[in-house]
């Protein structure tokens, strides 16, 4: 019997939710096992890096690579798995566009180490010891994988065949992709998106949309929104309008605004900028006739200053992959 094609799944800088999403395809995992030799997955299997190194180049049919590139080790594994895989898929928001780990790009590495290892109220670190790439001890030199200054997406360090958005990708979408591969369906052109639609979350959201006039913005804890009307109409920052569909509008269905985990919709390059465009068009500052320029600015600022964290709201998942990638504080 010819051996089955190999499947692997790796985690770099990530939380493990992507692996949970894969096993959440439930009994379909048996179909995966029937069609693939699930070869390498540190979260679920015992095969090691050496086993991957021992394979011929291209010896793995598909690698689902989740997690952003934060450390030298993440990058090394990205290059190794690229070499060994026919299809390298950026699986989930971290690998695709940086996700939560990439919000750390708003600060420097030195600032992170200071707040984690020195200023942290539950840590006693009088000597100010922080992790170093190399440490000299009497027995010799110890090394740790380098911690990079910035978080990068998978495609910023190596060649990626496809990306699957989502934090995590919805199990039904994961199965759609695996099924398409099993059935030998034609995949989109290289570099494309798998497991998402061509429109925005609003397409999948059943709420009633009306002409939008936002006179006040609310944070989620401030109101219990109406369950029928569009959340953005009600003044909640629902990112659905600037987010690709594919999830089934899960969050709006349970009365929570979309936070944007499926990334920018087709044709959009910067999710945050697109949300600026959308929000700027629907703020209602009342009667504008005869109002001074300063008063216009004051009214707009009063509305928009109620959002405390613009990067974290508009780029919660897409900072590393955004046009400017986030700055340093």
């Amino acid at each position: 019997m010819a051996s089955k094609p190999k499947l692997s799944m790796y985690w770099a800088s990530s939380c493990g939710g992507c692996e949970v999403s894969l096993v959440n395809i439930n009994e379909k995992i048996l179909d995966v096992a029937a069609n693939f030799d699930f070869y390498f997955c540190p979260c679920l299997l015992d095969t090691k890096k050496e086993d991957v190194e021992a394979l011929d180049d291209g010896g793995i049919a598909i690698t689902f690579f989740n997690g952003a590139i934060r450390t030298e080790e993440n990058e090394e594994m990205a290059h190794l798995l690229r070499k060994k895989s026919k299809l390298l898929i950026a699986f989930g928001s971290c690998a695709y566009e940086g996700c939560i780990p990439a919000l750390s790009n708003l600060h420097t590495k030195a600032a992170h180490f200071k707040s984690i290892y020195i200023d942290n109220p539950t840590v006693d670190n009088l000597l100010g010891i922080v992790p170093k790439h190399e440490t000299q001890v009497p027995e010799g030199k110890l090394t740790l994988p380098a911690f990079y200054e910035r978080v990068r997406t998978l495609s910023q360090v190596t060649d990626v065949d496809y990306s699957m958005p989502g934090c995590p990708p919805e199990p039904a979408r994961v199965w759609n992709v695996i099924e398409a591969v099993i059935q030998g369906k034609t995949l989109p052109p290289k570099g494309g998106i798998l497991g998402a639609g061509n429109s925005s979350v609003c397409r999948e959201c059943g709420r009633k949309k009306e002409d939008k006039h936002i006179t006040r913005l609310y944070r989620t804890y401030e109101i219990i929104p109406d369950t029928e009307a569009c959340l953005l109409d009600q003044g909640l920052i629902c990112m659905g309008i600037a987010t690709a569909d594919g999830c089934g509008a899960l969050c709006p269905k349970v009365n929570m605004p979309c936070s944007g985990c499926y990334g920018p919709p087709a044709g959009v390059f910067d999710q945050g900028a697109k949300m600026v465009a959308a929000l700027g068009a629907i703020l209602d500052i009342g009667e504008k006739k005869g109002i001074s320029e300063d008063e216009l600015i004051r009214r707009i600022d009063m509305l928009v200053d109620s959002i405390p964290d613009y990067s974290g709201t508009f780029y919660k998942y897409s900072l590393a992959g955004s046009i400017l990638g986030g700055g340093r504080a």
Partner: protein
Amino acid sequence: MFEPRIVGFLCNWCSYAGADKAARAYPPNVNVVRVMCSGRVDPQFILKAYKAGADGVLVLACHPGDCHYKEGNYKALARHRILLRVLAGHGIESARCRFDYVSASEGDRFIEIITEMTDTVRALGPYAGNTMGKRS
């Protein structure tokens, strides 16, 4: 001396005509992009300008109440106020992104704004930029 590169999005109905009426010499630092309305300026254009090497971006609109399409300049203003907060997260000083009004007859005002913006950005120095963004 550092010569900043500035991208100016000028509305066809006001500031673009205003620039035509600028009858004195002014700094040549602004690369003009004519748009049909300041409301057409997608914030993505502005981010792309920085990414492509701009040190500053100008959006010049019709005065309040004068928009050819009634509301475009108000939308552009609201977007600018939000964008300034977003730019802070990208490490871009607010002075590098200016929104202002120039009517079709205000050639002198156009010169004034271009000169001010050029001086401001020159004083700030080049935008350090960051080349990490993927989808440019």
